[in-house]
């Protein structure tokens, strides 16, 4: 095996930059036309940034979980996932100003009136400024540090033959998975679920995680397709694409399972403080809310179900784009309705009654495209820092001869 060095093709760079610029222009126009509604701007930023941060982190999770599973097939695409993990630090840094300046617009529990709300008073020991910031810093720093350590260890392995780096990757992965197991759930409660502070759901953490895991698998598949079209990754075949496609398909179904479980149990039990979450979405965002199910479940189910589809580059390419957009929309649906409802109440009784809930506008699409562009540029920049093939990985041969 030989090291395969990578320089980002000019076309990929210009696509990334183009997305970033077009997105930024749309976003700025969106901001200027929505200056009267800061909650919308900050919530869009939070949902989009958190989404891309977690997609990058799910790439790291994939590497760690496959390493702990002693799996061999993924070794050839390991560097792609590690490049995604390189985005974690960027997302973490961007998270801080969003929380710092946007917190009082996004989170209704930060309002001074929360002191008169008995439910929020009961939750105050957990939902308060100090503890929230402490947790946020632990997540963001912890994730970035693990991403740095795991990726550095893997890259060092290229120049040091032997088993030592592989053994330390096992230890690092195990510790990271423990940390991630707890923080993936609690961060979902903090950043997204606390937008609707009266409401809670016990499977919210997994739901958020699976959403980003599907999206990160779609990103990996997209990167395989793009890199192969530029002549890189000679040893990655349709067998690897097929396996990534299986992950996309299986976790789309898992996502639908959690979406449905949460929805049906709450609908069936019909307890007002729980159903309010879904009532806000059914009534104010009917198309987008059920649209996420079509994009993230019905579409992948019907398109990716056959073996041939998961091995066809064209079909996979379209499915990846739909899934990446669909799960972003899912994050938007988790964040925006709660924040908009709280905002409408600050307008006074009459205005709240006639409040028109904003749909997808230039602001939201612009933010999505901006982060798509940023993510593409950061990930490909990270990818060009190391060989595309981890030459000294002990399972490299298993990955080359892999056959599903």
């Amino acid at each position, binding site marked *: 095996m030989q090291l395969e060095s990578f320089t980002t093709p000019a076309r990929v760079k210009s696509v990334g930059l183009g997305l970033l610029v077009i997105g930024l222009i749309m976003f700025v126009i969106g901001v200027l036309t929505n200056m009267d509604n800061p909650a919308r701007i900050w919530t869009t930023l939070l949902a989009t940034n958190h989404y891309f941060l977690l997609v990058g982190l799910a790439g790291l999770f994939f590497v760690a979980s496959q390493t702990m599973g002693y799996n061999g097939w993924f070794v050839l695409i390991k560097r792609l996932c590690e490049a995604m993990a390189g985005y974690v630090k960027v997302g973490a840094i961007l998270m801080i100003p969003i929380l710092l300046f946007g917190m009082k617009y996004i989170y209704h529990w930060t309002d001074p009136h929360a002191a008169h709300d008995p439910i929020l008073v009961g939750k105050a020991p957990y939902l308060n400024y100090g503890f929230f910031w402490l947790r946020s810093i632990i997540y963001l720093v912890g994730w970035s540090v693990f991403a740095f350590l795991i990726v550095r260890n893997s890259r060092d392995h290229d120049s040091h033959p032997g088993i030592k780096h592989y053994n330390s990757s096992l230890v690092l992965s195990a510790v990271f998975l423990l940390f991630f197991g707890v923080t993936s759930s609690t961060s979902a409660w903090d950043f997204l679920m606390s937008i609707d502070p009266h409401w809670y759901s016990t499977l919210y953490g997994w739901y958020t995680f699976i959403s980003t895991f599907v999206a990160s698998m779609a990103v990996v598949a997209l990167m395989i397709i793009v890199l192969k079209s530029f002549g890189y990754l000679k040893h990655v075949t349709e067998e690897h694409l097929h396996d990534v496609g299986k992950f996309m398909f299986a976790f789309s179904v898992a996502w639908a399972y959690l979406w*449905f479980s949460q*929805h*049906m149990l709450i*609908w*069936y039990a*019909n307890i007002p403080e729980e159903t309010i979450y879904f009532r806000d979405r059914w009534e104010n965002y009917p198309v987008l809310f059920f649209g996420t199910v079509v994009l993230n479940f019905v579409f992948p189910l019907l398109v990716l*179900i*056959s*073996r041939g589809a998961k091995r066809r580059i064209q079909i996979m390419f379209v499915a990846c784009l739909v899934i990446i957009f669909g799960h972003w929309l899912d994050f938007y649906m988790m964040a925006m309705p709660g924040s908009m409802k709280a905002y409408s109440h600050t307008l006074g009784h009459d205005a709240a009654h006639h409040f028109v809930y904003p749909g997808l506008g230039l602001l939201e699409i612009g933010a999505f495209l901006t982060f798509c562009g940023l993510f593409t540029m950061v990930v490909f920049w990270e990818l060009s820092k190391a060989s595309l093939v981890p030459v000294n990985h002990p399972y490299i041969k298993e990955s080359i001869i892999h*056959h599903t």
Partner: protein
Amino acid sequence: MYNYLVGIYGDDDDLIQAVRKVKDAGLEIHDCLTPFPIHGLEKAMELKESRLHTAGFFYGATGTMFALFCMTWIQTYSWPLNVGGKPGFALLSFIPITFELTVLFAAVGMTVTYYLRNRLSIFRHDEVLDVRITDHKFAMVFDLDKYDSEEDLNRIKRVLQSTKVEEINLREMQHKVYSAEEQS
């Protein structure tokens, strides 16, 4: 009476390599019989992909539609029940049963189809080409009704002897042994 030529191999890897050689020589393999599934054998034999899962999809879709139709008909027309004040057409609560019936229809349908295609049944007790293939040997079978001349037979034997074959046996069977293509 049906005639078959059976080449016996002691190792799965030898079998796959032999299959490739035989294919290159342009001979038609009737079937390979092994004690366990072998990864990559179907590729070496150039078998077509089974259509069983396509049938499974349609069985499943039938189950989905049957469940949704049945529950909707019962709850809105035939015998509407008041369950906790929920509406009659309560799609959310139909989903779990729809899921179960989808799985049931797909599973039962595929099992029945599989048995029919493979001509399997509890009432059939055919003799086996070579009893060791259920335990530790691997067999490559040729249909001698297709290769019935002395010349063909010698050609098959020559090709097989260039592989790591352990024995070459001629078998006369009471029943037809169906080929891999006929069973997929």
